[in-house]
């Protein structure tokens, strides 16, 4: 047998992380770091290799039974957790889940034939997700080595052991790989529940209050799991199939809608967003993992997997689009009101996932390509941003954006990397902006959706530029501070930053080379796509992104020639404070050692009294109250979900 055959790569991608997780759990600190690094290298290599290989399928002998046993086992574990934390709602939902799984087993025993299809497969969509999971995921894992070292020093006594943390952290990657490659719904459900379990354990890492937030995550995701198993059961009973292939072939609307609801819970779309916000209490690498490489991506993957081909039910697709668009604009609105950096990132993730779902719902070639692009570019940028915020938080002891003034001088490397990450979320020529551009062009035929997308985009620009403006605020310094970074964290930051830069530079190339062909493949033979839509699709690919680079290049070269080289310390002036500045020299390093110096401006007022003034950033607090807005958005979102179920004739 060929050493690097498809089957072996598949096994490596799924099983290796779990095995290394066990090793990390059992081994002492030093060996643990080694095994995490080794695992990262192996998973990344296997992920790249499997994407290079042609699409393939794999069938496991006796897989039906193995998958069922695993599924029952994982639901059993969740049941056990529900009993120990005495959450009867989770218990009830897990029992219902178990009941449905048993019903399916009984059906199979009594001779209800279900068409069997292959268990695992790779196709272009799968490959994109594998690349994200097996490259971004390990980079975050390496970062976690450095981060957890100092985290554990300040961790509360209730915190779980590092071994346990890394077991779930690494195994998560394997389950995610399994999830995206599974074609059989039984396997898919198993991996789905496994990621739920991992996220529960990781969010509750520090014990205490984090346990409560972990419980909420488990509750919401178990609800999603219930919808998922219900969809699978329906598919088996009505359409006599249990694979995604069969689902798409049968055009079974009800299972599709149930799976979408499951996806909404995992992607934390409105009204299910609360668990992802609560998850911010976990150590930062966990947030990075949940937001970029795993968990929430599973939801958007599922929506992209099941929605193509349902153009015969335009109403259902329309409602899915509306949920996505509402989430996009609503989460962006809530992000504007936040000064907590991690919450801003969380809302931004929710917002972008909403856009992916909206694009999937629109179902035109351009929308599909935009959805793929957002998933990819978002994964890299958001992973990077969480890593940066984690480091900034460890260094300045606060995650409040208002406290981040002056860090450009104190930690230039991290701040520059964070600036790259933030700018990649909204500015040309980075990929996120190009994806948003395509999303707007794709939604053009449905005005209601378009208004949501436009308002959402405007709000996105608002909250990002506020934050960028704050972290780059600084006085004049002839030299930057030298920054010492833990090697593991430094490696991850630099690698991801390079990834953001390279994918940003090549975003149009990536679009034409990968996303466009994949989209053409998915939409091949579809007669309902008009020529106009294809024209728009092709025109988007024609855009000369190179002009943007030329412009940026000209600005930088002119700046370097005319300003950077010639700038002298004598050219520096103090800011205008409408009076005499209290700082006698232009730059004072001592100001950076007391926290007030970073935040306020000192000037001489009447009678030589030194006054400190301070201007905050706007959070539109007099416009929007986060709590009230959340309640209203949730009500609207629930109504839309009920409409969705109604459209699918489930109610």
């Amino acid at each position, binding site marked *: 047998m060929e050493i690097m055959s498809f089957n072996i790569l598949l096994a490596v991608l799924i099983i290796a992380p779990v095995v290394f997780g066990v090793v990390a759990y059992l081994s002492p600190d030093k060996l643990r770091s080694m095994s995490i690094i080794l695992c990262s290298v192996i998973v990344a290599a296997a992920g790249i290799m499997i994407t290079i290989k042609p699409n393939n399928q794999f069938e496991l002998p006796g897989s039906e039974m193995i998958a069922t046993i695993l599924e029952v086992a994982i639901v059993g574990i969740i049941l056990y957790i529900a009993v120990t934390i005495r959450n009867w709602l989770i218990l009830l939902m897990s029992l219902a889940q178990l009941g449905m799984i048993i019903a399916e087993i009984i059906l199979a025993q009594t001779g209800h034939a279900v068409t069997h299809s292959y268990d695992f497969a790779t196709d272009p969509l799968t490959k994109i997700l594998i690349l994200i999971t097996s490259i971004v995921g390990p980079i975050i894992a390496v970062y976690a080595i450095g981060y957890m070292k100092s985290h554990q020093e300040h961790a509360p006594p209730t915190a779980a052991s590092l071994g346990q943390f890394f077991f779930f952290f690494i195994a998560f990657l394997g389950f995610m790989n399994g999830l995206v490659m599974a074609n059989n719904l039984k396997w898919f459900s198993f991996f789905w529940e496994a990621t739920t379990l991992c996220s529960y354990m990781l969010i509750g890492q520090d014990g205490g209050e984090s346990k409560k937030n972990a419980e909420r995550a488990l509750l919401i995701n178990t609800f999603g799991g219930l919808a998922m198993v219900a969809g699978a059961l329906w598919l088996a009973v009505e359409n006599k199939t249990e694979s995604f292939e069969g689902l798409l072939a049968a055009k079974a609307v009800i299972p599709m809608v149930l799976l979408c609801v499951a996806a909404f819970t995992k992607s934390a779309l409105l009204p299910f967003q609360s668990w992802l916000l609560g998850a911010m209490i976990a150590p930062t690498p966990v947030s990075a993992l949940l937001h970029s490489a795993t968990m929430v991506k599973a939801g958007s993957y599922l929506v992209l997997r099941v929605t193509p081909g349902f153009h015969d039910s335009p109403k259902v697709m329309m409602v899915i689009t509306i949920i996505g668009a509402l989430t996009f604009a609503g989460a962006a609105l809530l992000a504007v009101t936040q000064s907590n950096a991690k919450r801003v990132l969380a809302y931004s993730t929710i917002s972008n996932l909403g856009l992916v779902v909206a694009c999937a719902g629109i179902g035109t070639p351009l929308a599909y390509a935009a959805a793929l692009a957002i998933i990819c570019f978002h994964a890299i940028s958001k992973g990077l941003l969480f890593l940066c915020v984690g480091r900034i938080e460890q260094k300045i002891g606060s995650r409040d954006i208002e406290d981040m003034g002056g860090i450009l001088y104190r930690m230039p490397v991290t701040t520059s990397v964070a600036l790259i990450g933030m700018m990649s979320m909204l500015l040309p020529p980075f990929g996120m902006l190009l994806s948003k551009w395509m999303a707007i062009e794709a939604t053009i035929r449905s005005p209601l959706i378009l208004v949501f997308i436009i308002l959402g985009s405007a709000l996105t620009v608002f909250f990002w530029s506020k934050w960028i403006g704050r972290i780059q605020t600084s006085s004049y310094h002839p030299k930057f501070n030298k920054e010492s970074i833990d090697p593991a964290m430094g490696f991850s930051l630099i690698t991801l930053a390079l990834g953001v830069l390279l994918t940003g530079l090549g975003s149009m190339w990536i679009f034409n080379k990968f996303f466009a062909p994949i989209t053409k493949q998915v939409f091949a033979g579809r007669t309902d796509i008009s020529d106009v839509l294809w024209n728009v699709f092709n025109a988007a690919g024609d855009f000369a992104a190179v002009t943007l680079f030329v412009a940026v290049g000209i600005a930088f070269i002119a700046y370097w020639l005319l300003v950077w080289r010639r*700038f002298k310390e004598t050219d520096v002036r103090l*800011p205008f404070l409408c009076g005499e500045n209290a700082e006698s020299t232009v730059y004072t390093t001592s100001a950076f050692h007391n926290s007030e110096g970073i935040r306020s401006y000192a000037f001489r007022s009447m009678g030589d009294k030194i006054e400190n003034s301070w201007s905050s950033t706007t959070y539109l607090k007099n416009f929007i109250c986060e709590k009230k807005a959340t309640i209203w958005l949730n009500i609207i979102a629930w109504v839309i979900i009920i409409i969705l179920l109604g459209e699918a004739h489930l109610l």
Partner: protein
Amino acid sequence: MMDKINWTQWIIIAVSLVAAPFIGALIAGLDRKVTARMQGRKGPPVIQPFYDIIKLFSKQPVALHKLQILYAFLHLVFMMLVVVFLAMGQDLLMILFAHAFSTICLVLGGMSVRSPYSRIGSLRKIMQMLAYEPILILIIVAIYLQTDSFLASSVMSMSKPMLCSMPLLFLAFLSAVAIKLNKSPFDVSTSHHAHQEIVKGITIEYAGPYLGIIEIAHFYETAILFFIIMMFWQTNLYIGFGLETLAFLAILILDNTFSRLTTTWMLKYMWSIPLFLSIANIIWLWSK
């Protein structure tokens, strides 16, 4: 795309890049002259903006730090890129994004320094963007609904003047132009009048040649905005020019009759009346 550009297009690009700031400066000069006459003053000569620019560039270059100046450069270059894109007839949404990027650079430059006035001005500039950006996108949507294309060049293929199919959007656009040109009652981030309470706002910490760069970018922007107004009657450029004159006078009268209002008022106003007018216009076009 680049290889498809022939030499006539190169000439068009070059001419528009050179002509745009001159046109913008002349409009600014006329603006000051007409405003002065409205207020019963004599006013400076029409070519005063040119003198101003020359003077700014002869001054000593001073700044608060180096990063601040990079943003001034990016602001200008992307404003020029908008002109290039328009001359090439490129994708309208991309033109809008390039323009937004240019404005964001100005905001980030204002925020990069430790100055309260500059920071407040920058924040207000973002609020201004938040207020007018949706209107601009909706105009592009309206163009798409009529031509099935996002390319700026497709506007010329329309047989009827745009104003006939987008009258409400035109009114909304005038509000957006008033914000962009920082005219009362929308001059919250920085103002041409001396009565502004945050002194000069977003550009306060720029001086000398660096302020000159921002002024030139502003001339480009003015030229772009007035070019778009003219395009509302793209079938006959003389009528387009007349439209432009009317819009110019309307904005000046607005500027001189109103005093500055708050940011909150601006946001509420823009997201209610002009946005509503635009959406009504879009729905009308959509249902046609």
